[in-house]
C-alpha cells in the first residue's frame, strides 16, 4: 500500500501576516502542496483610484507595516517619472539613507525575531534573550539605529510622514546627520559580530538551481533604481516589466503566480541582490561576503539570512557615505504640477523587487495603479523549494517535517499583508481558502 501522509501548518508563526501550508504526500511523492494565504484582501489598487497623486506616498505606506519606505519609494519614482520631476542629488542621497534605515530595521526584525529561533530550536526572540542576551541586545540596538534613520527623515518608523513627490517635507541639518554618523560608525563592527554569531549557528543548507532577479545599477548597490536583471541573462528597464514577467495559473490548483515568461519561477530578495551585485559591495560588506564564500557558491535560499546580515553592513556603509558627503539641499522638494501620464517604479524592498505602475488623469488623480510586491513574486519559488525539500522530510517525524517546512518558508521572509492587497483570496470547490494573484 502506498504510504499517505499530510503535513499541515494551520497558522504560520513568525511571518508577517496570516498564511498556512497544506501538503499531501503519497508514496514519497508530493501529491499536493499549497501555501495558503487567508489574509483578507484589502483592495488597495481599487480604492486608491481617484485619490490625489500627492496623497499616494502616505497611502501606499499602509500596505505594509514593515516596509512602508519601499512602497513610498516605488510610488515617488513612478510619479516623478510621470511628472518629469528631477530630484536633486542631495535629495536622492537622503532617499538612499532613508531606504538604508528600512533595510536595517527590516533585516534585523527578520534575523532576530523571525529566523534565529529556528536555528536554536526556540519559540521566539524573548527565549533567545534569556540564553544569549548579548546577541539579542546587539540585534535590537542595531535595529534601533535603522529606526533612528527613519525617524530622522520620516518622524516615525511605521508609516513615516516625511516623504513627498519631489523629495521630503523637511531636510535634516548637517549637525543632525553628523550625530547620526557618530552613532552609526561603531555599528559596523557590531553588525559584523552579529553576522559571525549567525554563521556559528546550525543554519541548514538547501543549494538548488534558481533564477535570481534583482535590480542592477552601474554605480551602486541597488536600492532605489536600476535595471531588472537575472542570473540567466534577463536585463530590462522597469517599464518593460510586463514583457518579461507574466502571471499564470498552475494546473494543480486555483493559484496564479508571477513567473518569468517561458522560464517559470524565480526568486527576489537579499540573496538575489547580493549574488547579482557583489561588485558594488562596500569593502566591509565585501569582506563579510568573502568570509561566507562557501555559502554563496550556489544559490541557497537558506543562506538568505547571511545575505541579510551582509546587507546590514552594506546599509550602514551606504548611510555613512551619504552622511559624510551631505550638504543640505537648496529645497527639500522639487516643485511639480499635476498632469496625466503613466510612470513606472521599481525599487528594492528589504524582501526584494517592488514594481509599481501608476497612471494619472488630467487632474493629476490616480486613474490606474498596479503593484507587484516581492512576496507575490517569490510565491511559486517557495512552493518549488518545499517540493524539493519534502521527499527527504518523509523520514522525519511529522513535527520535525513541519518545522523544516516553516523554516524554509521563513527564509524568504514572506510579507503576507503586503502580498495580499494583490494576492486574491479564493475558495476552491471543496471550500478551502486558496491563493491566487492578480
Amino acid at each position, binding site marked *: 500500500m502506498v504510504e499517505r501522509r499530510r503535513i499541515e501548518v494551520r*497558522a*504560520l*508563526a*513568525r*511571518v*508577517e*501576516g*496570516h498564511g498556512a501550508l497544506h501538503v499531501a504526500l503519497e508514496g514519497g511523492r508530493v501529491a499536493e502542496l499549497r501555501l495558503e494565504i*487567508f*489574509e*483578507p*484582501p*484589502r*483592495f*488597495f*489598487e*481599487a*480604492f486608491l483610484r*481617484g*485619490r*490625489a497623486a500627492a*496623497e499616494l506616498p502616505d*497611502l501606499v505606506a*499602509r*500596505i*505594509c*507595516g*514593515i516596509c512602508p519606505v519601499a512602497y513610498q519609494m516605488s510610488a515617488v519614482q513612478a510619479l516623478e517619472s510621470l511628472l518629469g520631476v528631477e530630484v536633486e542629488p542631495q535629495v536622492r542621497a537622503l532617499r538612499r539613507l532613508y531606504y538604508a534605515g528600512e533595510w536595517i530595521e527590516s533585516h534585523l*526584525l527578520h534575523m532576530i*525575531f523571525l529566523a534565529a*529561533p529556528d536555528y536554536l530550536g526556540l*519559540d*521566539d526572540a*524573548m527565549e533567545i*534573550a534569556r540564553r544569549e542576551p548579548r546577541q*539579542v*541586545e546587539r540585534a*535590537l*540596538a542595531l535595529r534601533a539605529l535603522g*529606526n533612528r534613520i527613519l525617524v530622522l527623515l520620516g*518622524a*516615525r*518608523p*511605521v*508609516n513615516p*510622514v*516625511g516623504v*513627498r513627490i519631489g523629495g521630503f*517635507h*523637511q531636510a535634516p541639518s548637517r549637525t543632525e546627520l553628523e550625530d547620526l554618523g557618530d552613532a552609526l560608525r561603531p555599528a559596523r563592527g557590531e553588525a559584523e559580530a552579529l553576522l559571525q554569531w549567525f554563521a556559528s549557528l546550525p543554519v541548514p543548507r538547501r543549494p538548488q538551481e534558481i533564477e535570481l532577479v534583482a535590480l542592477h545599477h552601474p554605480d551602486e548597490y541597488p536600492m532605489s533604481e536600476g535595471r531588472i536583471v537575472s542570473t540567466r541573462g534577463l536585463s530590462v528597464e522597469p517599464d518593460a516589466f510586463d514583457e518579461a514577467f507574466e502571471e499564470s495559473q498552475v494546473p494543480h490548483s*486555483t493559484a496564479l503566480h508571477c513567473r518569468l515568461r517561458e522560464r517559470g519561477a524565480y526568486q527576489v530578495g537579499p540573496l538575489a541582490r547580493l549574488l547579482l551585485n557583489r561588485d558594488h559591495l562596500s569593502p566591509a560588506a565585501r569582506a563579510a561576503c568573502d568570509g561566507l564564500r562557501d555559502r554563496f557558491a550556489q544559490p541557497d535560499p537558506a543562506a538568505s539570512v547571511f545575505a541579510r546580515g551582509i546587507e546590514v553592513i552594506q546599509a550602514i556603509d551606504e548611510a555613512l557615505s551619504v552622511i559624510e558627503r551631505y550638504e543640505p539641499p537648496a529645497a527639500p522638494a522639487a516643485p511639480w504640477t499635476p498632469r496625466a501620464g503613466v510612470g513606472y517604479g521599481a525599487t528594492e524592498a528589504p524582501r526584494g523587487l517592488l514594481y509599481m505602475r501608476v497612471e494619472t488623469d488630467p487632474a493629476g488623480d490616480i486613474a490606474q495603479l498596479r503593484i507587484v510586491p516581492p512576496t507575490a513574486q517569490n510565491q511559486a519559488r517557495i512552493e518549488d523549494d518545499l517540493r524539493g525539500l519534502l521527499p527527504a522530510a518523509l523520514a522525519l517525524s511529522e513535527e520535525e517535517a513541519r518545522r523544516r517546512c*516553516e523554516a524554509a518558508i521563513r527564509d524568504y521572509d514572506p510579507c503576507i*499583508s503586503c502580498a495580499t492587497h494583490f494576492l*486574491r*483570496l*479564493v*475558495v*476552491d470547490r471543496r471550500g478551502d481558502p486558496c491563493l*491566487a494573484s*492578480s
Partner: protein
Amino acid sequence: MSGERPRLAVHKLASCDGCQVAILNLEQRLLELADRFEVAFFLEATSRAQSGPYDVALVEGSVTTPSDLERIHRIREQSRTLVTIGACATSGGIQALRNQAEVESWKQQIYPHPEWIEVLATSTPVSDHVHVDAQIEGCPVNAEQVLRVLTRALLGARSDLPGASVCLECKRRGNVCVVVARGLPCLGPVTRGGCGALCPSLGRDCYACFGPSEDPNVDSLARHLRAAGLSARDVARRLRGVAGWRPELREAALRLERGDG
C-alpha cells in the same frame, strides 16, 4: 490576575501589521513586557500559540471577512479585557474606503473569478461587532500609549488616553501653525492627539491618522479649508483618509459631497 503573570494575546485581522511592528519597536522594553506578561499568543513574534482565556487581548485590524467576523467573537469570549489597537481596529482603516463603493463591481473588474472572493461588503471597526474595553488610536499606534494602557491594566486601572486635538500638541512643541501661517489643509484641529504632532512638526499638514478628537467641529474646519481655496470634493477626500469611516469624519464628508457642507 492572581499570583501568576497575566496572559497577553495579540491578534490580527485585516491590517498591515504596522501596529504590531510598533510594539516590536519597543525593543528592550518589549523584553520587559514579556517579563510582566505571559505572552500567550502573538503569532508574528512567537511560535508558542496558546489558546485562551487571556487577561488582555490587543486586536489589530478591521473586520472584512466572514471568518474574521466569527473570529472576533471567539476572541471576545476568551478575553477579559479587549483593547483595539490602531486605525483599522478602531475605525475600519484605510480599507474602509470600500464601504461606499461597489465592492461587487471591484471584484468583477479585478478578479476573473469574483465568485471565489469571500469578503464582506464593508471594512468595519471591532467595536461594531463586540464590546471593546479600550481603544488605542493611530496609524500606527504610538507604542508609548500601548505601554501606558498595559501598565494600567496590570494595576487594574482603566485606560486614560487623552482625547484633545493635535493643536494642543503643536502648542506644547511650539510649532508655528501650518494652517494660519502657510494655509495648508491641516486636519490637526479635529484630530486626536497622541502622535506628538509629527506632521506639523515637519511643516506639513496632519491627515488625521489618529482619528477624530473629542467633540470635533469638522464642519467648521471644512468651511475654513474651503475659504482657503479647496473644493468641497478635495476637503471630503481629505476627510476620507485612514480613519475616514469614523462617523464624525464620514458624515462631514458626506455633507460636503452632497453640497450641504
